[in-house]
């Protein structure tokens, strides 16, 4: 009824090319933005920020990054954890070396440094594909974690090998350190996520995005029609690593505050982000959000239901969670390889035809 193109006339090319061509979607987008920016910051408390919203926002940035590389450009990567570590350690070194510069600039610079590292590790993708590339990025994962553990310059020679985020302010409000208000944590992550999502959405709709997708669908054909594979693959690695670096910097500075590289950015982090885009939907910005939300919320929801409501032992619930996530991944890979985003797309198609399906 509400969800249809009929009657929504476009009178300019600009209007025809907009991100959300259907009015209902546009309204939905602005309502979501209004709730996210104007309602939640006033209602959020420590638990909601630290257990749900902040991890969701940060993982969504990481998932968008990996989705650009894997979903849009078709290059499988298992190095997400390592690249997040680059973002975190770059941010830490910048924060401690230049304490007077704004943390926002540090986070963006950390993304830039990660982009450079990511592009360097993307070089082999010109020669190798598929499983072999996955193994090459796996090497990046292990090498980077080893590097940050081994070279004490990266953690400023501290005895424990941990990095701790000092207190930093944006417009006089603390956004890192223990005295950060939950709304401030939430807002800085939300601003970065919004900026990243808009950037990613528009990149994927333009020339660069189309060249990525051409490479993904068939690289030889793409080369024949004039797509430069070197440029396409390296930009995909760089842009993807930029987002992942930002998420790593936020993860360390805003969310955890103290990080130990092997534990926080190990191989399981790479898998977690990969599962997010598989469950959420490969090649979809919305899918990145859906996957991040799903995998952040599922453990919390299971815990609330299993432990707090039903009174089950905590270890049983923790094991059950592994079983459920494993089962879901197999289910999605077999039944719906395009993930939650495809379910959402199908629902929208059905709504357009409702109440007269054919």
């Amino acid at each position, binding site marked *: 009824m509400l969800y249809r193109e009929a009657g929504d006339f476009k009178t300019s090319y600009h209007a025809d090319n907009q991100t959300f061509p259907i009015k209902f979607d546009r309204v*939905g987008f602005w309502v*979501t933005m209004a*709730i996210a920016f104007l309602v939640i910051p006033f209602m959020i408390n*420590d*638990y*909601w920020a*630290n*257990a*749900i919203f902040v*991890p*969701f926002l940060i993982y969504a940035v990481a998932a968008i990054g990996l989705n650009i590389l894997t979903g849009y450009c078709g290059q499988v990567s298992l190095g997400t954890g390592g690249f997040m570590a680059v973002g975190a350690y770059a941010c830490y070194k910048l924060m401690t070396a230049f304490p007077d510069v704004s943390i926002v600039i540090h986070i963006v610079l950390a993304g830039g440094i990660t982009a450079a590292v990511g592009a360097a590790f993307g070089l082999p993708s010109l020669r190798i594909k598929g499983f072999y590339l996955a193994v090459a990025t796996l090497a990046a994962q292990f090498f980077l974690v080893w590097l940050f*553990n081994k070279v004490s310059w990266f953690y400023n020679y501290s*005895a*424990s*090998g*941990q990095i*701790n985020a*000092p*207190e930093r302010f944006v417009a006089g409000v603390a956004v890192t*350190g*223990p*005295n950060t208000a939950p709304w401030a944590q939430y807002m800085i992550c939300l601003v970065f996520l919004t900026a990243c999502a808009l950037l990613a959405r528009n990149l994927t709709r333009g020339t660069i995005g189309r060249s990525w997708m051409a490479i993904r669908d068939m690289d030889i054909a793409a080369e024949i029609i004039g797509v430069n594979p070197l440029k396409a693959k390296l930009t995909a690695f760089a842009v993807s690593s930029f987002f992942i670096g930002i998420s790593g910097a936020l993860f360390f500075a805003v*969310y*955890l*505050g*103290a*990080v*130990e590289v*092997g*534990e*926080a950015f*190990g191989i399981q982090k790479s898998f977690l982000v990969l599962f997010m885009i598989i469950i959420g939907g490969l090649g979809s910005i919305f899918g990145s*959000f*859906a996957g991040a*939300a*799903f995998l952040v*919320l599922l*453990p*919390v*929801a299971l*815990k*609330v239901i299993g*432990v*707090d*409501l039903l009174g089950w*032992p*905590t*270890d049983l*619930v*923790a*094991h059950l969670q592994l079983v459920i996530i494993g089962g879901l991944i197999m289910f999605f890979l077999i039944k719906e390889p395009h993930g939650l985003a495809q379910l959402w797309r199908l629902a929208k198609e059905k709504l357009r035809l409702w109440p007269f399906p054919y």
Partner: protein
Amino acid sequence: MKMKRLAAMAMGAMVAAAPAMADLVIPDLSYRTGPYAAGGTPFSDGYQDYFALLNARDGGIGGEAVRIVECETGYNTEKGVECYESTKGEGALIYQPLSTGITYQIIPKATADQIPIHTMGYGRTSAANGEVFNWVFNYPANYWDAASVAVNYLLDENGGSLDGKTIALVYHNSAYGKEPIRTLEALSEMHGFELSQLAVDHPGQEQKSQWLQIRRERPDYVLMWGWGVMNQVAVQEAANIGFPMENFIGNWWAGAEHDVTPAGDAANGYKSLNMNRVVDYPVLAEIQSMVHDAGNAAGDGSNLGSVLYVRGMYAAMLAAEAIAKAQEIHGEADVTPAMVRDGMAALEITEARMGELGMAGIGPEFSVSCQNHGGSGQGLVQQWNASAGVWEPLTDFIAPDKSVIEPLIAEDSAAFASENNITPGCL
């Protein structure tokens, strides 16, 4: 995004609906899953069973019932943070995360929220300086004490000199494993032994190359800072290369039954430190009759009396004594976290009191003050007897070399204070 928000709202309603009861809330950030569960499970069982005993026998502490809120962390810092945030709202009085990584994570948060943390023999060593770390306690001993106790024991074995000896440190490549390095380096300079460092990555199942290196270098002694599955693998590997077990000493997190039983007879003679003596205490019989037989055992009840169970029970006893002390200081049964902190800062554990509690000699006598949150720092050395299947204490409590540790603590805590703009002082 909309679906998520809906689910979030529904969950918020559930969380808010949980009733707030007036009792003493003790969160137990346990881990019964993952590669460290073998150590986490008995500790948590002991921790919970002791509070269950207090509830059953004395009606709680000072007439207030104790309510345990268990939260599974899996030894993972992210889940630890989530557990901390979800339990602190219930009026948590004292945190005992049993993980150095999670401890580093929650030290700033708990300080800002004014909730005390007790990290017994783990966590951040320089928290022993109570003037910088007002809310963190690591009595009765810390890692640097452990390193010094181990070296003092070796000095004793070698007639007072370790000159020209080689000691290898096999450590978990994390904040936990890296903690003793600074002290051992200072001690190696002082006593003239050579220290070689071998890192083992999480979770610790891959140690072949480290032990091949040990076989090649033939150090006189091997010290180990291990935890979880890493310990079993290390003991097995040491047996495989034929390293003499009596020269292999683990710290107090690498000396429980489950660490040595997989290697069978080959583990005979393996030594480890311990901060609590393990014998058949009368309190264990009380737990058996009043908690386990009543069907209230935490976990499956099979860990009663094991090394880490006793340590968990010891941790619970120290927490309960601190709460009792807080009730005494403030004359109020329903204490707040800030009052419990006062109780911890004034805690005094005597032989007589441990005897009254049915656990005579479980730990060293010590007293806590505003300045010193670290306790006496003593530890003993125990040895595994594989045929009898028991850990036998070899020594009495050995004192660490405070002249080495205290300057290091002062230095590290001063660095933390300047990084975080803390003016050292008592609350």
